[in-house]
């Protein structure tokens, strides 16, 4: 049984259909990559899986771990073990990164976490991501550079330990060093948690250190092609033009 199973998913935003019947199947612990030109609907797919209310599912189903989550709310989907790393993480004034993660962790695990244990884990994860410890007590994403925002997303991934992580262009806007650090964080998630990854990306730098199981190309809100890792090399060489009808 697949961990994530999407069948014939159609999604509209403000009455405009963006996804026209997407199929996707991701097994537990697998790494899948979603590629496609700008405006293909890649991020829409991520938000739709996550149950974001702006993205209306008009047809099809989304199942996770054998359970239909098509109509579930975002918070319940997150509690079931799906994590979305945002392309543009939102600034939340007044709530520190540390308190946000602690609250979220208590929600997804359903357990009270001892402050000392939490702080120790957080410090370790921040160190692994080469993050300045002072960021823990700063307001969530407020005044963070693009790179720090992406690191804060991966930090949440490492702390929340979901069984499926959707990474929406996590590597975009990052310099070479930051891509390396973020990639190391994703590798650490795979190693420690063994969760599945659905990586939405334009570039392939972030994939270098990962064992990719399947690559899916989406064009104009439809599945255009699917293959193994070799598809990434093909796209690097020939672009997306070959899939546009």
């Amino acid at each position, binding site marked *: 049984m697949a961990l994530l199973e999407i069948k014939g998913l159609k999604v509209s935003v403000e009455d405009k259909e963006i996804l026209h019947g997407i199929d996707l199947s991701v097994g537990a612990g697998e790494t899948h990559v979603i590629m496609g030109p700008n405006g293909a609907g890649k991020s829409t797919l991520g938000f739709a899986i*996550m149950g*974001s*209310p*702006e993205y209306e599912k008009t047809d099809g189903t989304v199942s996770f771990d054998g359970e239909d989550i098509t109509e579930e*709310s*975002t*918070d319940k989907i*997150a*509690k079931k073990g799906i*994590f*979305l790393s*945002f392309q543009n*993480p*939102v600034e*939340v004034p*007044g*709530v*520190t990164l540390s*308190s*946000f993660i602690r*609250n*979220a962790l208590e*929600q*997804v695990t359903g357990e*009270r976490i*001892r*402050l000392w244990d939490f702080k120790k884990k957080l410090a370790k994860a921040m160190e692994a991501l080469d993050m300045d410890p002072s960021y823990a007590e700063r307001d969530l994403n407020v005044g963070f550079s693009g790179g720090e925002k992406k690191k804060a997303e991966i930090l*949440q991934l490492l702390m*929340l330990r979901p069984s499926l992580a959707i990474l929406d262009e996590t590597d975009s806007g990052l310099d070479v060093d930051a891509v390396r650090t973020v990639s190391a964080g994703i590798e650490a998630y795979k190693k420690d948690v063994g969760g599945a990854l659905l990586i939405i990306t334009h570039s392939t730098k972030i994939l270098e250190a990962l064992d990719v199981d399947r690559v899916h190309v989406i064009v104009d809100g439809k599945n255009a092609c699917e293959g193994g890792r070799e598809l990434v090399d093909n796209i690097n060489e020939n672009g997306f033009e070959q899939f546009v009808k």
Partner: protein
Amino acid sequence: MEKMYVNHLPCITWKWLKMNGVESSDLPVSASRITADVPSGWTVSDDTAAQGSDIAANSNAEIEKALFADKIVTGLGPDMDRLIKEADVPVLRLTASADEPLVIENIYKDGDSKLSAVEITIPDGVDAVVTEKFISEDVCSDGNAVCGFQTRLIIGKNASVKLDQVQKLAKNVVFYNDIGTFNAENGRFELVEVILAGGSTYFGSRSNLAGRESSLDIEMAYLVKGKEALDSNIAAFQRGKRTDAQIRVNGVLKDEAKKLTKATIDFKTGSTDSVGSETEDVLMMSDNVVNRTVPLILCTEESVEGVHGATLGRPSEEIMTYMMSRGLDKNQIYDIMEKARLDAAAAKIHDEQTRREIAEYLHPGEETE
């Protein structure tokens, strides 16, 4: 005194807006001597007589004249001075020392009608820390009480006082919290005001920034819920050159709460190169709250810089989606955001025990630092 007029706006507006001031007949009548462990380095004066006031409570001209005469006129205003005098309240007069902080804890019971006053002189060059707590014996009680407290601060040259106030009163308590300061040259007044609970609160703070480079820094956070009401009047009277007034108010309104914030930066002639800023950010958690804000910048001096801003509303859809994507439901998000505002102000309180008490109130059963 049967009625008291408080929180007069330094520049009046249309009467029908009902923002110029408040007349109240719920008055504390029993003089209450402050009992506090005064640190050994501090001195206590034998003079406990209240001064009273001959200024009309609704006359900005008279208030201004008194301020130019280096007097303290408090935020609630002259009627509070008159009430204190009439009730024969023994004023605790102290001279501060930098050695140890002063903590004054006021615990009110059901049926109390207590009125207290403290006047602290901070000598030249001394940096003092004062914590004042206003707490109901049983914060969950339905009992009535009407209480008042006045703090006067005479801040010397190059002196400073950090005043932290915490209010945690039961839902039927009427409370008058009155502050007035006189700031000599480079005299600095820092106030952290955390209002967690209380039935009807009248809060006033006015600083007479007479000295050159004197300053005021107010960080206020409030949670007004149920049928509670908060009426605040914060005023910076900037007379000295290069004075600085910073007023930041962060609040949360829930249920059927009512709140009026008046914040005034008043640049007087001679306050050359002074700056002032006042901001208020209100999180409104219900459609039934009443939120009113009067940000005032008055100016009779050219070379000054005044800024004001107010934001209100609920967390944006973007923020909601982001936080929900981490497993938090709407109520939990509201709860986190509301407590975060109070936590941020509480973290600035100097007294560790007081910080702990706030944390226990805001996060019951939770392990905090």
